[in-house]
């Protein structure tokens, strides 16, 4: 299987081939190719030890251990937690950011980062907002959290009303 993985702003093509034997069935050959430098491909053979919500990989050549907690999230997103660092990965090009991201068109979709209640809308359709300006206040876990615009723009759509309960990922407003 070959997939494209984007993580931390880097893109890799990863090819996996099962090379296990009866004695050691979970051995996989992994070819990791940075998409910005295809000649720098790295080939590794690793033991794969699956655990609940994660896996431990042991490199057969240098015995290095990768201990990763991996959680599937909606829309091709994965949360990969290595010791000391949490990373978001997307697999196979479904790279459209779920929230806050500034798409190529200059559109920002402000979405609910967690389930909660829309406490206050701080802007109206047609308002001009500055980068970093608070646009909506969500109440969750007993705290008020102000969500901000990532970049300057004009509010094109408000998709919720004050007092409304929202699920994580729900579109709140759109800024162009």
């Amino acid at each position, binding site marked *: *299987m070959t*997939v494209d*993985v984007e*993580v*931390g702003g*880097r893109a*890799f093509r*990863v090819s*996996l081939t099962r090379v296990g034997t009866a004695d050691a069935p979970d051995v*996989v050959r*992994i070819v*990791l190719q940075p998409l910005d430098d295809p000649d720098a491909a*790295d080939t*590794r053979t*690793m033991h*794969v030890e*699956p*655990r*609940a*919500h*994660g*896996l431990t*990989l042991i490199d057969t050549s240098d015995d290095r251990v*990768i201990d*990763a*907690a*991996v*959680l*599937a999230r909606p829309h091709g997103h*994965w949360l*990969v*937690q*290595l*010791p*000391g*660092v*949490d*990373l978001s*990965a997307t*697999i196979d090009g479904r790279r459209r950011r779920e929230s806050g991201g500034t798409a190529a068109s200059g559109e920002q979709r402000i979405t609910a*980062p*967690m*389930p*909660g209640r829309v*406490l206050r809308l701080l802007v109206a359709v047609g308002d001009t907002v500055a980068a970093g300006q608070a646009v909506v*206040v969500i*109440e*969750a*876990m*007993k*705290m*008020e*959290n102000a969500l*901000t615009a990532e970049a300057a723009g004009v509010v094109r759509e408000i998709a919720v009303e004050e007092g409304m309960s929202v699920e994580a990922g729900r579109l709140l407003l759109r800024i162009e």
Partner: protein
Amino acid sequence: MKVLVANRGEIAVRIIRACRALGLGVVAVYSDCDRGALHVRLADEAHRLGPAPSTESYLRIDAIIDAARRSGASLVHPGYGFLAENPAFADACRQAGLTFVGPSADAIARMGGKTAAREIALGVGVPVVPGTPPFEADAPEAEIVAAAETVGYPLLIKAVAGGGGKGMRTVEWPGQLVDAARRAASEAQSAFGDGRCYMERRLVEPRHVEIQLIGDHGGRIVPFVERECSIQRRHQKVVEESPAVALPHETRHAMADAAVRIARAVGYTNAGTIEFLVDRDGSFYFLEMNTRLQVEHPVTEAVTGVDLVQWQLRVALGEQLTLDPARTLEPRGHAIECRVYAEDPDRGFLPSPGLVTSVTVPSGPGVRDDRGVTDGDDVPVYYDPLIAKLTVWGETRGAAIARLRQALDEYRVTGVHTTLPFFRWLVRQPAFVAGAVSTTYLDGVLAGRREPFVQPTEQQLRDAAIAAAVAAWRARADTRTTSSGTSRWLLAARKEQLR
């Protein structure tokens, strides 16, 4: 004899430990989303309070009293938050013939009203920060503006019933006042059921230093060595330590003396904390009293060797305090606590509720972890996202920081985001290491930050890409193989779907 623990999460677990140490039975209470929570699993029996929202469960006095009656509990420990500082709850316990593990309803009422508490402090000669009387949530704009003028800017708006930074706002200039007052009032209303707020002058770069004390029913009040809680984010303490950094010996004793005078003025019993702000010139002002166990009590326990929660229970049962104030005011070594929240520090500390898939807890000499969740537990969206408190002890502050760094590096929580990466960054900041911080330090440095608290290395990015690819590959293989009943991945996936 049984104790009903009227709380959840790490503090319920902490109280259960103290009950066990004294040979007392444990009755837990839970909301619907907490039926399988750690505090329930550690109890002898558990009683349902109601649906998940706290107003329908952990804040329901009638349901808790009813659970106590049904279980035959004779004591009720409120923990912190929820009903801990609600005099009506303490009173309802008393009327139901239950022993409330805390001060009297009268003492809670007198010290819980922040403006009344200030009057009490002034009455026993303890200075307070200049402030206003309380105003109603719907007070006219003109009244709010006029009150602010008497205090001057910058000022703080605080909830009369407040605590934990809820219902609190900083106002730098007049233009921010009315909006901040309304927001503080609405937050106070939803958090405490009381929207009244007041205003207080904001000192320039003060330190937050507090005195823990405990009183028995024979009029003895024992103060403890101070705690410093100057590292705060949005008025919420995130790191606490004991003793304070570079606090003169005389100031410690003067503060302890002031704290005891205030407590004595209201006939205070059980554990409580008097909070002070220390100005740059070393003078201190009474801030407020917390009439309950504090989140940060472990640092005091670490430097004095006293089990505060056991003493809460023993005092409630009528025992006399046998603690020697000369010893409780003299710290042994230095302790630091970090509050670990299920929040994503790289996204403005947004709450990160969800399934905790695994917890790897640090250990070793001088390392203590108080935790409300373990592998497979849920962090519900309904409550405070504090999931654990890491407390380290060392012979010196430097030794404690070294241990803290190692413990933070060892600590791992997966499934949700936590503030651990933020703490790993914080404990390496020169200002923290030097102890050169005030209550405005953290908000100041965070305001200008955009970069992540941990920068992944090239190796980590490659490892993550491999791990994600292998996980995706196995997930696809498992969905194709219907007969593979033994696959742990498939079982895990099925379990996920059942959630």
